[in-house]
């Protein structure tokens, strides 16, 4: 029984090694990186980070990414809330088919949609805006949010609704004043997942932007291919993308496990 900690420890060690490799490289100079392997940075430098925080093409990438991720999270969760309520409480014509159809959009490979999305958003003149990426990410985030919220809502007894209606609450008043606070944890988890999938997605975000709304991930790939072999800079940019995620995880750490199970273990 006491040897149980070995496996998780080894596993976490395995998870941390590549991250360490990235971090240590971000503190090295280009010459040192190309000169050969060293476990610790020999000539410790913050040059790579300074470059990112002073060059607008770099730090704007982070701002752009955060803007569309926040818009997307907000849209996805607010439209998913009433829908999830409908799925968890009522039977209606075609409900099961609709639910499965929603999930199929979570299954559509973004590569299939890249080109049509480009044409669609160009034709309505939203190309290269934050809102375009935010709307495009709704394709897979709304179904996910509905799925998660439905799970959480099914865990709330229906007596709560019935009592509220008997007390004379209208639907929307009940929904906003009583129901939403009750499933606050579920909303947190759904927001976490929307944030996560929107933050990590690159293909659609890159296809739908060129200059104004270019996400950090795209800045990285384009830099990698144009300016040659600036591994230190790339590593520093990569290390910085881990921070928002780590920040979000820390806040929802007690709910992650439950959210991954979509609330209905």
């Amino acid at each position, binding site marked *: 029984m006491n040897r149980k*900690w070995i496996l*998780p420890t080894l596993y976490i060690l395995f998870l941390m*090694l590549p991250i360490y490799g990235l971090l240590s490289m971000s503190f090295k100079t280009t010459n040192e990186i190309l000169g050969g392997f060293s476990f610790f940075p020999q000539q410790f430098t913050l040059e790579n980070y300074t470059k990112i925080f002073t060059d607008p093409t770099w730090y704007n990438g982070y701002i752009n990414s955060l803007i569309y991720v926040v818009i997307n999270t907000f849209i996805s969760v607010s439209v998913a809330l009433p829908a999830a309520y409908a799925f968890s409480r009522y039977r209606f014509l075609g409900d099961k088919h609709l639910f499965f159809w929603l999930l199929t959009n979570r299954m559509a490979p973004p*590569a*299939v949609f890249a080109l049509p999305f480009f*044409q669609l958003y160009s034709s309505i003149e939203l190309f290269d805006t934050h809102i375009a990426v935010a709307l495009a990410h709704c394709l897979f985030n*709304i179904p996910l949010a509905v799925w998660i919220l439905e799970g959480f809502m099914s865990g709330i007894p229906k007596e709560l609704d019935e009592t509220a209606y008997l007390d004379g609450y209208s639907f929307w008043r009940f929904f906003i004043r009583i129901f939403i606070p009750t499933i606050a944890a579920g909303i947190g988890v759904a927001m976490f997942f929307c944030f996560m999938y929107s933050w*990590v997605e690159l293909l659609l975000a890159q296809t739908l932007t060129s200059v104004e709304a270019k996400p950090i991930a795209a800045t990285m790939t384009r830099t990698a291919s144009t300016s040659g072999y600036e591994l230190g800079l790339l590593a520093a940019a990569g290390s910085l993308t881990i921070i928002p995620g780590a920040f979000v995880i820390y806040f929802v750490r007690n709910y992650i496990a439950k959210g991954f199970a979509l609330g209905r273990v």
Partner: protein
Amino acid sequence: MRKTTNQKAWWLVVPVLLLVAFNAFIPLMTVVNYSVQETFGNNAFFWEGVTWFEKVLRSERFHDSLLRQLLFTGMIISIEVPLGIAVALSMPRKGPWVSVCLVLMALPLLIPWNVVGAMWNIFALPDIGLLGYTLNSMGFDYNFTQQPVSAWMTTVVMDVWHWTSLVVLLCYAGLCSIPDAYYQAAHIDGASRWAVFRYIQLPKMKRVLTIAILLRFMDSFMIYTEPFVLTGGGPGNTTTFLSIDLVKIALGQFDLGPAAAMSLIYFLIVLLVCWVFYTVMMRNEEQ
């Protein structure tokens, strides 16, 4: 839960329906449109019928990337699921270490996919990366940019690194929902460790495991960014999975017809597998 029939509930679903339909129907119809036509530019289109579908289904290139895709998905699921269960089983249930474990394990899930690719690229570089350098100095001949086997291993290990935590977190959630009384009863009955796993823990994890396998299947089947950044589909075509191949045809060569036909076939395969999973899952739930 008992549900009441209420057709007015449709109104609550309308916003979701509109937004998703806008994003799903129009692009999907565009793809269907391209898949049955030939174009020579200038927006001139000619009806082609099912020619593209036949061509794609017969082409060796499609068979190869589909085969690679199936092999890859099979490999990562058969590694990630047992490993994930094992880690979840040995994780602490209470105490300060739970949060530490959860936060550290969830970290790879929140790293942008291209950064995952870039990170592993750096990590595995033969002469200057931590992994590549270590393997080579231990006497292995390892170079993922030139050897197909190394490239495959690196891609698979990268995916295991990236996504096993998802399985761990799901299984852990399943395990946490088992009341202590079950274990006490098993203890009184003198059940072996294996019996506890087989008859208490596994049944409780069945639902979350289905979700885990479903999610892993869907996501690994549409994997694009990570292997693209890591190996670029190479060396040669050895790690060109379906999505990479599709983007090469659609955006690289601008062969819209074949690319569209391939997209639809690809989407149908994913849909079919997921439908089977979903039906099985729902049936289990109703029992």
